[in-house]
């Protein structure tokens, strides 16, 4: 940051301070604020009949016996639903994901795919009915290996009305959800000229977000005859559109709101439960509720895309990295949600890390359909998989060159002010990555920990490091909006559609508004999110909320200030140029008059034509990356393969952290998820395509005893295009643990693991693939 920026930041009054979240007292006292707490319990219970086959056609389905069970109200099959295909993906229309879904399809495409919707008055009746629905299947050959999916004889989406609204290289006849090739410079020529060329493939499994609150939706008909949806979702507006598409009804007939959500991490950026109770309610006109079990959330939800990232790196003996060549094969599963978009990040949000000396790069990819659970959005959104591969091969390169991995990185990383050809030629206006690395090294004591130490009792201590980047919004696409109202007694109401899923965006956006309105944080109450009441926002994903909705908030607050001055001008009978606003109210610069916020609010409600409610929207042509450096020390038991994490240090450059306490928790949470992805969270299938890890009993997410001590610091940079200098932090935080741990394990054992998770068995048996 330059001196001027430092001065600006030092002057902030509410931004940059660690306020408790606005909702914390309600959460910590266990108040009923979640979907299943605030919606009636006497409504129809909705559950699904699911396919036991990975690929099949429903040839006969008989619901007569099931319908006779007392309490069963309705059972819908593929014969009862609209035939227009749409996508479940929560993305800006026109979605890049293919339109490949029906509410219920005659073809089932993964074990767990929906075969029928059952609605009844009690859970017992519905459970019994599910068992009594008689289904005959024509079992088809499934495609279970994503490496064999492209151009396979078996086509997973042969239907005529499949379509891709946007050209992303999709071709259903080839099982392709997306394809692209992009080369800059003479990659092959430069590789030939390099002293060292390494090429490896890295495999990441479809990890599950495993947020504590599973998917759930309540639906009813409102007093206007519209469908009113209360759902645990990150994307109220996209939800509205998707539900309307699924039911083939006008968007104006649907209202979606979200209460408090028990976590999302991207899982709830796809419609999972919403369409089923919505359909039931629309048909029966009765309220309905669907709550996914944890089992369903493991087998029929929206996990991370399985990716195999093959990366080739060309460098000179002195460590100059001159060329990078990446190919990503991504497994979209049975449907294409987020397929074309996640894959792009694997290259676009990893390769730019090494901008300094890179003369040429190539990034090609394929996204394929297979007959397994459809993947979706999970924190990191493709960057995680790409960063894993890139950081691993850079660590392997350091080893090959006998160079300190930190030194290798300092030589090649992007620096502030550089243009990034691998990032659409955006300029890194705010980049403190070098400072992050230096600071991390100091806090962690890299110099003394970088070389492994054998403890003599069968255990060895070793350290590894990794960098990460992400973006802050989808440039030229994401829209954030904010409405601020001046109300009685001069307090404010802020309306947003960005979804706080625990991240605290309600609070930090209020902090930004308070900064401009020069008031106490408590003077602003926040409402979000409801398609009837909140201004349009793409929703909480892509790390866009702080950067995009934040800017909309800032603009709205500034606009409201202007309007307050206009109202005051009428009250004080002075031109606006002679007036100024401070937090308490508006005063005449010559000291001749003052009206308080209270007074202005009162005036706004009587004989007033100047709106005391303003809305602002924002989009950005750029997506400034946050940056991160991390180092981890482990103790590895060479005789059992067990790994204990002793110490994890990370330094984040998210621009200016709006609420340092909340930013810190984001980092700690993301790192812990990354640790799970790296060491303990496994996803495997049996021969029939059924997922074996289908509960929290066999899908192990980190407990308190699994993550060691986490130490987070911030290195600030000032992003000129962000409100108050901010960038983002929501996703980047999950990207460092896997490569950092893999390199520590390599230091300890001499083996570079390229397939996650790296379990004790893999370590002990030195295997690369289980």
């Amino acid at each position: 940051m330059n001196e001027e920026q430092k001065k600006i930041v030092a002057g902030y009054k509410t931004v940059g301070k660690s306020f408790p979240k606005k909702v914390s007292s309600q959460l910590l006292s266990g108040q009923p604020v979640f979907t299943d707490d605030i919606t009636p319990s006497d409504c129809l219970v909705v559950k699904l009949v699911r396919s036991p086959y990975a690929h099949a056609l429903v040839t006969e389905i008989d619901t007569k016996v099931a319908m006779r069970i007392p309490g069963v109200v309705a059972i819908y099959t593929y014969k009862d639903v609209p035939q227009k295909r749409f996508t479940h993906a929560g993305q800006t229309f026109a979605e890049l994901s293919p339109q490949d879904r029906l509410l219920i399809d005659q073809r089932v495409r993964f074990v767990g795919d929906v075969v029928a919707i059952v609605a009844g008055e009690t859970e017992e009746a519905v459970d019994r009915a599910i068992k009594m629905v008689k289904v005959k299947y024509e079992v088809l050959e499934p495609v279970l290996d994503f490496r064999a999916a492209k151009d396979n004889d078996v086509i997973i989406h042969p239907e005529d009305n499949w379509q891709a609204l946007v050209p992303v290289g999709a071709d259903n006849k080839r099982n392709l959800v997306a394809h692209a090739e992009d080369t800059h410079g003479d990659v092959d020529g430069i590789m030939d000229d390099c002293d060292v060329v390494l090429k490896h493939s890295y495999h990441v499994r479809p990890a599950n977000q495993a947020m504590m609150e599973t998917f759930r939706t309540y639906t009813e008909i409102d007093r206007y005859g519209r469908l009113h949806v209360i759902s645990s979702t990150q994307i109220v507006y996209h939800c509205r559109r998707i539900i309307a598409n699924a039911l083939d009804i006008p968007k104006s007939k649907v209202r979606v709101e979200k209460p408090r959500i028990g976590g999302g991490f991207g899982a709830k950026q796809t419609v999972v439960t919403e369409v089923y109770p919505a359909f039931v309610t629309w048909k029966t006109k009765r309220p309905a509720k669907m709550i996914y079990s944890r089992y369903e959330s493991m087998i029929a939800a929206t996990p991370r895309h399985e990716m195999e990232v093959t990366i080739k790196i060309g460098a000179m003996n002195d460590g100059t990295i001159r060329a990078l060549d990446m190919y990503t094969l991504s497994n979209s599963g049975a449907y294409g949600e987020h397929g074309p978009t996640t894959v792009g990040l694997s290259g676009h949000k990893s390769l730019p890390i090494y901008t300094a000396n890179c003369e040429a790069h190539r990034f090609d990819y394929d996204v394929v359909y297979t007959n397994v659970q459809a993947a979706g959005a999970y924190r990191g959104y493709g960057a995680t998989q790409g960063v894993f591969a890139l950081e691993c091969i850079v660590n392997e390169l350091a080893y090959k060159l006998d160079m300190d991995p930190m030194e290798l990185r300092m030589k090649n990383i992007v620096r502030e002010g550089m243009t990034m050809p691998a990032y659409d030629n955006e300029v890194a206006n705010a980049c403190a990555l070098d400072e992050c690395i230096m600071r991390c090294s100091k806090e962690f004591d890299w110099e003394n920990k970088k070389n492994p130490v054998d403890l003599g009792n069968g255990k060895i201590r070793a350290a590894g490091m990794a960098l990460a980047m992400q973006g802050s919004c989808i440039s030229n696409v994401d829209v954030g909006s904010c409405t601020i109202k001046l109300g009685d007694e001069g307090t404010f109401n802020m309306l947003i559609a960005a979804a706080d899923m625990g991240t605290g965006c309600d609070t930090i956006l209020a902090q930004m508004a308070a900064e401009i309105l020069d008031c106490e944080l408590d003077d602003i109450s926040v409402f979000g999110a409801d398609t009837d009441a909140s201004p349009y926002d793409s929703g909480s994903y892509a790390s866009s909320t702080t950067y995009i909705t934040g800017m909309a908030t800032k603009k709205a607050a500034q606009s409201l200030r202007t309007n307050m001055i206009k109202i005051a001008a009428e009250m004080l009978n002075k031109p606006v140029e002679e007036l100024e606003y401070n937090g308490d109210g508006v005063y005449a610069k010559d000291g001749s008059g003052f009206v308080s916020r209270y007074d202005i609010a009162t005036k706004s409600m009587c004989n007033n034509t100047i709106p005391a409610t303003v809305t602002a929207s924002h989009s950005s042509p750029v997506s400034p990356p946050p940056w991160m450096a991390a180092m981890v020390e482990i103790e590895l038991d060479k005789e059992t393969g067990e790994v204990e994490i002793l110490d994890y240090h990370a330094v984040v450059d998210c621009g200016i952290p709006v609420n340092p306490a909340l930013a810190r928790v984001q980092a700690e949470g993301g790192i812990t998820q990354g640790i799970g992805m790296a060491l303990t969270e496994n996803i495997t299938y049996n021969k029939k395509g059924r997922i074996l890890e289908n509960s929290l009993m066999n899908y192990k997410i980190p407990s308190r005893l699994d993550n060691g001590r986490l130490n987070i610091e911030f290195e600030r940079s000032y992003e000129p295009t962000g409100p108050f200098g901010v960038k983002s932090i929501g996703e980047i935080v999950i990207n460092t643990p896997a490569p950092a741990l893999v390199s520590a394990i390599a230091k300890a054992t001499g083996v570079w693991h390229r397939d996650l998770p790296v379990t004790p068995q893999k370590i002990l048996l030195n295997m690369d693939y289980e």
Partner: protein
Amino acid sequence: MEISMTLNGRKIKASIEPNTLLIDFVRAQKCFSVKRGCETTNCGLCTVILDGKPVLSCSILAARCNGKTVETLEGLQEEVAPFTKFLAEQGADQCGFCNPGYIVNFAALLRENPDPTDEEIDFYLSGNLCRCTGFESQRRAFRNYLNYKKEQEGAK
């Protein structure tokens, strides 16, 4: 069948199906803080205190609690208020869905051991999963609270 128990200090009688689980029973009694996060005993979100011991309400029949004492977060507000404000300070609440489980369990820990070490807290709460925080903010909050408590007691 008929059962009676003391729920958050109140004696209640109810008519239930024998297979009613304690979690569904207390939620039907409007104790919505008790949450369900899994079907396999792993998450700890459903933690309640039964006759003074923290248990998983998802796995206990309400019938087995006949004549016993059950406490949920609704009935522990005064007991937890001293430390929940430290959690708020750290932003450790996050999505809030796992909060009641570990707050009730921490209260149970303090009844057994009023001055636990950080390791003892991690161990006692190891059955309480959280996906948002990475546990560090909770650790800080508990440590700050315990230090504060010591100071207050020392000052007396």
